[in-house]
């Protein structure tokens, strides 16, 4: 009996904690279902009088194209971020050559540098290469800025992989790049999943870079699109929160689906130094 009571109490306390924790987000829902301008009349936290899904429809129509842009940017950047970072991590964890230590430090430097100093110089670079306002240009910037962190994560993991499997493959005549693709990568599934989630977040949530480098409306990602709801002196909060909720969706789905692997990835060696 004691056991069951204990369990119920645990569930109740935990649920209360979660409700408090998520109160702000719960509040977003409340605002998103209010019809236009009810927000002002009854005070911020009033319960919606006539809940409606209209805002979601309007919001979706407005940010549709931006949504696809974001999706596209993530879809293209992610594989490359992971590929390039793991390639570098492989080189600098399984092989040692004279410049190793220096290059490792060089690559990790990126994690220490503030992002805003790259705004103007990269603009000039992209302009010189005629890549301004192109999806390719933005992808290149996203990739470059995210390499450091993923490199750090994956290298840490690679260092923990035992050499025996590799030795065996080498004896069998397997060239190193094959070892990379066939052995190392599959073994690193957990950490790659962690990288996917973290980089998805970084690219999806970015705003400043997109605004700076994309001129065409057609190329703006979803966070820039959310700005549309902020008219100058009349922020349309109902639609904006509906838009925010829609924009959160992909990340939430990815996280919920990959949650188990994410935690597993963290445990298997991300944090083993």
């Amino acid at each position, binding site marked *: 009996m004691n056991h069951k009571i204990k*369990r119920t109490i645990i*569930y109740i306390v*935990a649920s209360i904690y*979660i409700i408090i*924790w*998520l*109160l*702000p*987000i719960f*509040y*977003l829902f409340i605002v998103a279902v209010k019809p236009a301008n009810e927000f002002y009349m009854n*005070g*911020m*936290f009033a319960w919606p009088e006539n809940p409606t899904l209209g805002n979601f429809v309007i919001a979706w129509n407005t940010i549709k194209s931006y949504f696809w842009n974001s999706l596209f940017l993530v879809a293209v950047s992610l594989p490359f971020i992971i590929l*390039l970072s793991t*390639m*570098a991590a492989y*080189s*600098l964890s399984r092989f040692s*050559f004279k410049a190793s230590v220096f*290059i490792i430090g*060089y*690559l990790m430097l990126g*994690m*220490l*540098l*503030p*992002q*805003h*100093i*790259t705004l*103007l110089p990269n603009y000039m*670079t992209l302009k010189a290469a005629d890549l301004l306002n192109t999806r390719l240009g933005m992808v*290149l*910037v996203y*990739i*470059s*800025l995210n*390499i*450091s962190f993923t*490199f750090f994560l994956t290298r840490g993991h690679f260092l923990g992989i035992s050499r025996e499997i590799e030795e065996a493959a080498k004896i069998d005549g397997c060239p*190193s*790049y094959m070892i*990379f693709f066939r052995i190392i990568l599959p073994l690193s599934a957990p950490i790659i999943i962690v990288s996917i989630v973290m980089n998805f977040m970084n690219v999806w*949530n970015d705003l400043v870079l997109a605004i700076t480098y994309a001129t065409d409306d057609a190329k703006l990602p979803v966070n820039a699109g959310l700005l549309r709801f902020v008219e100058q002196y009349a922020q349309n909060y109902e639609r904006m929160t509906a838009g925010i909720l829609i*924009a*959160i969706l992909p990340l*939430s789905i990815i996280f919920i689906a990959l*949650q*188990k692997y*994410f*935690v*597993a990835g*963290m*445990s*298997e*060696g991300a*944090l*083993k*130094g």
Partner: protein
Amino acid sequence: MRRKTDWTPYVFLIAPLALYTIFMIFPTVYSFFISLHNWDGLSGVREFIGLDNYVEVLTEDEIFKVSIANNVRWAILSEIIPIVLGLVMAFVFNSKMKGFGFYRSAIFFPSVLSISTIGLIWRWLYDPNLGLLPEIVRIVTGGRVSFNWFANPEHTIYYLIIAGSWAYSGLCMILFMGGIKSVPEGTIEAAYLDGATRMQRIFYVILPQMKNSINIVLTFTLINSFKVFDLIYVMTAGGPGRMTNVMATWSYYSIFRYYEYGPGSAMSIIMAIILVVGSLIINKIVRMQKN
């Protein structure tokens, strides 16, 4: 054994290094270059003035001093609040009980929100007239205490840190859960069999084995709290009275609002130096601990 040169590692490094150098290192070098000049960003005139900008920024710029102080506050409190909270939640929610997966997702959820969203939500929460938090304080204290996060500009930064912690604790929890899982089951079992209570198991067995994870999270938090930009930019734009500026935002505003590229770039370089030196020191300490 054949002794052919293996080109793989070198080839593999070409693409990453190239992109990284062009878009990450070049801008930094360029910023350093600018920090040695007097430039307003628009005219073609760039006057070389050596280290004058650094001197000015470090001695005369009152707000820069404020911003460094804010970063330090951010660092100290971020090391405490989200990390302790994350640790506690990691242990509490680690249970395999049904439904706890949902709880874990719920706690982590704020971390995936974009900073603009987080900033918006918390601005509403803090609003002195109509926000939820002041309302709660009013109810609880019977209207005696009024709660205005802008009332004392020197304290506003703490409210920002709380908002940031809400977003970050979930991530810490997940990271620490990973660390907990990496402790061999056998060791925990042994302690259990030896009669250790839950608390004793946590403090004497699991935590010590998690040292690595904890160190890494501590380091990351430290680094990020010196780089923090977005949340302040979105919630207060450095105000009120420019008192919530951190190094990153003040550098940004110096460049983009006052057109002082020289001092602004000098600030970012100083930031980078602090971070590099800081991480080297931490690295040394961690290494010494291992031995």
